[in-house]
């Protein structure tokens, strides 16, 4: 991998340099951050990524369109359903396929459950980073229930591969909707429980209020999307602005923060989980009957052209840029990775703060290295 001196990011500094990661308990995978410290204060930070690079975009080029879906699962491996949703959405729009409403609603249910599951991981690990151990276990208990629902639907718990171009591969199993409803109905009580543990906790507020502040202008300049952008007070959600599936038919609100600090992003995500519960409840209530697969040619061959389609993933805007040359394989399939772009703002957010804040900010950005490195 070459020696460390060769990539020494701060050539002539007298402050202490410290390499956080790639093997570190709180960097959420193999992120490496070169930090220049003056005592405990961060003078500069430089994320170094690529330790998990697998060439996913190159692999896409050799796969068929449906064959590329399992590879999207492995990008943001905590949010496989939304990853799938983005890719199939892009290809469907390219081919002019209309998805049957039942399939569309199933997609929304899967995607919103995935958003909850992803936020659950975020909450557990974020709290663990800040030093609160117990929320991790409380949250993962709920996540298990979501994964059980997934397992029942498609057999997989993590890498779902649960969507196809043109619809859904399977209809919902018998009684699935009822079990899903049981879960979402009890879930808000769990959120309230976690909030009792953290939201008004003095130490939690000391550690998060005013930490990792980024203004709305700065957030737009740095291309932040998702909760980090909304935490800064920008009302921006792909589900509202460019509604896909049937998001324009369900009622939900976009929580936004005011100060752009870690605490606001925490509140935004907690509220997003409640809104996702609302969406799932509405979807289950109005789930139409009918087929789950549209009339789709056997070999998916979109016409020559290019399209960008994005969904609101749990971490931000997840976009797929598909270039087709008319063949059965994508000529180029580029992913706009929300975590990659959100992570770029890290130095901006931690400069001048303390080491402990770096950990809090990495947590609040909610990064998944699988998507950053692809």
């Amino acid at each position, binding site marked *: 991998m070459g020696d460390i001196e060769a990539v020494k990011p701060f050539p002539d500094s007298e402050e202490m340099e410290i390499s956080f990661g790639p093997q570190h308990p709180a960097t959420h995978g193999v992120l490496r951050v070169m930090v220049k410290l003056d005592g405990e204060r961060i003078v500069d930070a430089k994320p170094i990524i690529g330790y998990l690079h697998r060439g996913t975009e190159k692999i896409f080029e050799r796969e068929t369109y449906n064959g590329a879906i399992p590879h999207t699962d492995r990008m943001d491996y905590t949010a496989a359903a939304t990853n799938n949703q983005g890719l199939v959405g892009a290809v469907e729009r390219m081919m002019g*396929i209309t998805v049957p409403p039942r399939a569309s609603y199933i997609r929304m249910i899967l995607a919103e459950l995935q958003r909850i599951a992803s936020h659950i991981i975020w909450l557990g690990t974020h709290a663990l980073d800040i030093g609160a151990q117990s929320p991790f276990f409380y949250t993962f208990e709920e996540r298990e229930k979501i994964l059980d629902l997934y397992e029942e639907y498609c057999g997989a718990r993590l890498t779902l591969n649960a969507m196809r171009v043109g619809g859904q591969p399977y209809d919902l199993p018998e009684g699935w909707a009822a079990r899903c409803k049981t879960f979402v109905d009890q879930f808000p009580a769990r959120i309230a429980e976690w909030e009792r543990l953290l939201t008004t906790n003095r130490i939690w507020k000391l550690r998060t209020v005013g930490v990792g502040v980024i203004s709305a202008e700065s957030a737009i*300049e740095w*291309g932040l999307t998702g909760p980090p952008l909304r935490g800064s007070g920008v009302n921006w959600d792909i589900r509202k602005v460019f509604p896909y599936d049937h998001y324009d038919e369900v009622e939900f609100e976009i929580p936004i923060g005011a100060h752009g600090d870690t605490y606001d992003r925490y509140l935004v995500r907690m509220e997003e989980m409640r809104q996702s519960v609302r969406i799932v409840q509405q979807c289950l209530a109005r789930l139409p009957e009918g087929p789950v697969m549209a009339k789709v040619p056997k070999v998916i061959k979109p016409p020559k052209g*290019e399209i960008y389609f994005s969904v609101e993933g749990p971490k931000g805007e997840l976009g797929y840029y598909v270039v087709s040359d008319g063949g059965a394989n994508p000529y180029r399939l580029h992913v*706009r990775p929300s975590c990659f772009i959100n992570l770029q703002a890290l130095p901006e957010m931690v400069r001048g703060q303390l080491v402990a804040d770096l950990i809090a900010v990495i947590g609040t950005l909610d990064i998944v290295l699988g998507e950053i490195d692809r």
Partner: protein
Amino acid sequence: MTEQDNPTAPAETPPQAPAAPKAPWEEKPVTPVLRDARDHALVKEIAAVLPGVVLEAVEFAGQVTATVACARIAEVCRTCKERLGYSFLVDLTAVDWQERPQGRFDVIYWMHRFSDSRRLRLKVNVADGVEVPSVTGVWKVANWMEREVFDMFGIYFSGHPNLERILTWEGFNGHPLRKDFPIEGIDTGAAVYPDVYPPGGGPVAGGEGE
């Protein structure tokens, strides 16, 4: 209805449409067509502030692509941001058209503006080895995106503050997303830990491919 949705596919049709003989998902899909978009409102806006800069404009599935000259891209982007309100760079990437005569690569800029939630794609054709003016001065977010394009395609961006490889390592041989990079990969020597690394710290392109 938005730009992202395909205008030819009424995705939001209520499922209980009584009169329709057949639901749209039972029909054969109607593919969107590529059409010229020189008179599209978004393209006209650019042409109004920067006459003659748009070389070509097409529309596909409701998304407008304007091709501009490579040398002027930074200027066009700055104007788009400052005068047309495209404050948000959504995505920046590249496509390799290996055998194309008028420049091998396309560099794609996908911009968004919040005032009316419209998106516009800018595109430049770049020949191999030609430097593209960097837009990091326009949007800070372009920094890592351009580094990624450099890393994956070997396209140089002039004026970039820190044009280093980002996903592969310093000394990696080749640019993986070029079409002539073997899709099964190259032997980078990274997994076998040899006693002596090849000169340059990396492997030889296409040499001992598995």
